[in-house]
């Protein structure tokens, strides 16, 4: 069965510093990996995805993520955090069964 883990419930970063939100996955075969963001009282919004090709994926709002097959990771990164990046971030994985499996989420707080 496919699964995804977000080991940190909460990440705090000072404004202007680089940020990383961690995600590891477990699937058989090649994974399809996604990051979504949820702002308060809103639905999830798509940030980026990895299907195949270049391991570094660039997405919305200056975010990027690196697919690392050997470490089964897909960490979300941004070089310079903004206060407006504060939100709940979800990693998700799909492996050919039409269904996404979501992680439990990481709450990112950017401190001014």
């Amino acid at each position: 069965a496919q699964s995804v883990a977000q080991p940190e419930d909460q990440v705090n970063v000072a404004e202007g510093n680089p940020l990383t939100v961690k995600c590891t996955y477990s699937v058989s075969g090649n994974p399809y990996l996604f990051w979504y963001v949820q702002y308060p009282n809103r639905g999830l919004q798509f940030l980026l995805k990895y299907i195949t090709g270049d391991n570094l994926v660039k997405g919305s709002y200056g975010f990027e993520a690196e697919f690392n097959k050997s470490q089964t990771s897909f960490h979300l990164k941004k070089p310079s955090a903004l206060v407006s990046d504060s939100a709940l971030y979800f990693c998700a994985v799909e492996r050919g069964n039409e269904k996404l499996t979501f992680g439990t989420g990481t709450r990112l707080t950017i401190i001014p």
Partner: protein
Amino acid sequence: NAGVTQTPKFRVLKTGQSMTLLCAQDMNHEYMYWYRQDPGMGLRLIHYSVGEGTTAKGEVPDGYNVSRLKKQNFLLGLESAAPSQTSVYFCASSGPNGGTDTQYFGPGTRLTVL
């Protein structure tokens, strides 16, 4: 385009009551999904549909039923609500490539069962 809309936004039910949540999308998407979001558990898939007239069970289907009579609508029903069904419910839709396509989410329905 409105994208994905959900009705109602909030609802309070008593144990044993029934209700239907409506999801509508105007993107002509084939796939539609119902999730529930609970603190510390992320999103869990309840039911999904790969096209008009089709439905399939997700991770946590018990106590829920769904119907997809029209391509643009996906209904989630609770026949006899229980306090364990207190949650925030999200609908999503995606294009013909299923799992590799981006999912577009509605704003959510906050349901409380007393």
